[in-house]
């Protein structure tokens, strides 16, 4: 019965996110759907509430702390991304960035379904694990938003360079607002990623695991950190903003997603072992 309720919440969340995606796409596709554009952030908010409920209920049902299991990791990332988007969308004037956040949330939510939920093996338990996971989840959420802003930026930038200003250009946020939002999300996410990397390195050292996937995960984790560090420092030092920063952000996020893919592969190979390891590092 409880499992059915959890499943019900899961699908209700997925459908709400899907509805938000459809509303955003309709709005971006045609001026006639201005109402859909206004409703879409509301659908993201509704999805986020259902999502949070789903996480809380399922963690109670399965007796798993949300910040401890990989099962929730991706799910929580997308929830946090939605939450940050909902809080920041007015401040940064990036309402339409929801058009990228909603599909990301849906993808992460569905992806989390493929990762088998298990209790972390006792030998992987660590006091810094919750800190590691929390930092990484928040970091990922912010990078998801930076990624979404970067995609929107590139779309806007291309249109401005090609001087095609009808339609989509008018419905996307101002170019500079997207660049600024992308930068701030990166700036906020980077210290969290750094904490994630440091705690992950320390924890991996303690666990002394040397499997191929662990090494790949660590390497990709460091690569993500290095990419985001480069994007931020080149921007500060040489003024690499706009298109270059957007490409760097997208590349960094792509590598970060690879880390999650490694987890996923590992979860298929050895569900019990994966349950303890989370995100980068």
């Amino acid at each position: 019965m409880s499992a059915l309720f959890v499943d019900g919440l899961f699908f209700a969340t997925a459908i709400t996110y899907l509805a938000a995606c459809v509303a955003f796409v309709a709005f971006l596709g045609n001026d006639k759907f201005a109402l859909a554009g206004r409703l879409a952030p509301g659908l993201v908010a509704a999805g986020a509430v259902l999502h949070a409920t789903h996480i809380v209920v399922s963690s109670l049902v399965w007796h798993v702390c949300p910040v401890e299991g990989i099962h929730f990791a991706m799910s929580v990332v997308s929830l946090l991304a939605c939450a940050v988007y909902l809080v920041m969308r007015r401040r940064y004037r990036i309402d339409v960035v929801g058009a990228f956040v909603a599909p990301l949330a849906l993808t992460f939510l569905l992806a989390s379904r493929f990762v088998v939920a298990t209790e972390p093996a006792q030998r992987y338990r660590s006091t810094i694990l919750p800190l590691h996971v929390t930092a990484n989840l928040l970091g990922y959420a912010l990078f998801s938003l930076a990624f979404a802003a970067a995609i929107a930026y590139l779309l806007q930038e291309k249109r401005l360079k090609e001087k095609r200003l009808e339609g989509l250009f008018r419905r996307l946020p101002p170019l500079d607002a997207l660049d600024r939002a992308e930068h701030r999300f990166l700036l906020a996410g980077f210290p969290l990623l750094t904490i994630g990397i440091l705690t992950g390195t320390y924890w991996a050292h303690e666990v002394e695991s040397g499997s191929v996937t662990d090494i790949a995960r660590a390497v990709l984790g460091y690569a993500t950190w290095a990419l985001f560090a480069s994007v931020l420092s080149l921007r500060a030092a040489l003024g690499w903003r706009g298109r270059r920063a957007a490409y760097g952000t997208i590349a960094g996020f792509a590598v970060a997603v690879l880390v999650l893919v490694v987890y996923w592969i590992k979860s298929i190979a050895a569900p019990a072992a994966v349950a303890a390891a989370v995100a980068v590092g």
Partner: protein
Amino acid sequence: MICVVGLSHKTAPVEVREKFATSADVLPLVLARLASRAELKEAMFLSTCNRVEVFASAASPDALEQAVKAVRSVICDHAGVGDADAVLSYFYERTGKEAMRHVFRVAASLDSMVLGEPQILGQVKDAYDAASAAGTLGHYLGRCIHRAFTVAKRVRTETQIGAGSVSISSVAVDLARGIFGDLADHTVLLLGAGEMAEAAAKSLGKGARHIRVCNRSFERGAALAGSIGGDAVQWDALEDELGRADVVVSSTASPTHVVTKDLVKRAMKARKGRTLFFIDIAVPRNVEPSVHGIDNVYVYNVDDLEQQVAEAMKSRKGEAEAAERIVAHELAEFETWARGQSVAPTIVKLRARTRGVLLAELERTLGGRLRHLTEADKAALHQMVESATNKLLHTPTKHLRESSATDDGPDAVQAVKRLFDLPDDPPAEEPPSDETASAADKVSGFPPDPRGDEGLPH
């Protein structure tokens, strides 16, 4: 017969048009060149951001083709480009009725990229003033341009074509907002201090944090800065200013690029890649086109902006149709008047001949047998001669006038000339005397243009 030769936004992109653009100070020179051509009787030169055109009348009705060639060669010579086919492919020519229609449509802003934009009428008026001052306008072309002003006025008042006008300035503001969002944290730099800069400053400057004016003449820049609440800066400080500004509106009359790629590259280093948006409303363009290729720099020229305006104004199609009907109606009236011009000299001569014969006979009789008549009686007889002339010539005049609207006009004129042994016409389209003009108007039924210069836009 008039002809129109030129190029516009419809046939030539800005990179071609800017080669032909002519500033007001060299206009007398171009007009003098046109006047020196024997193929042309009258000429007017119109140069705006969107068009470079010559309206001219041929020295004789049969020499229209030569007139068109002459105009083309003057335009190309003036621009310093050969009249190679590649260049000529950008030109269009209209003659006769189509030329008149073109003049009317241009003045009424129906040929503008932005339908109904109000500036063109003032620009045509300026061209008209310059041609009048240079003495290159005669009765026929002058009348045609005057009629075009009337058409423009009617179109403006009888249709909604100019209502809620989307201007280049408003599109530029929209675009700047699409890039920067709120302009309250941004600086606008005006390059040049002319009317265009002022218009842009009024719309862009409202929301901006700072407006700075950079002009070659510092005093003029300072005057504009003072009137819009901005700061004037020295021309030498342009590179530094590009480092500070976010939106640059350039409208200088410089014939070469004021803002080069190298200059912007240096400025972008100084501004650490912050977005820079150029609105280049000058023709010839002030900003080197390759600047648009630099990362985080966007250059929009007058064609780009007008394209956006035109997109926004597609809904005005219905108004444009109503305006075209006004043009067609006015064109028909003007044609009637113009045709009347071909019979008017004959009618005037016929009247003069008839009146002359009758008056001569009257004077002879008054000097002989009727010598005893009082002055009042003599005056009554003179009046009788006038009435007799009018009554006698009423029917032939009517027939001549009617024939002028058909292909029989020239035959009728020849027949009357032969029957009454009238002298040949002076050279075609000679500006008629006031009396002739008024007779011609009377003949054609075309009312004299009621508007003096006072009604004309500047």
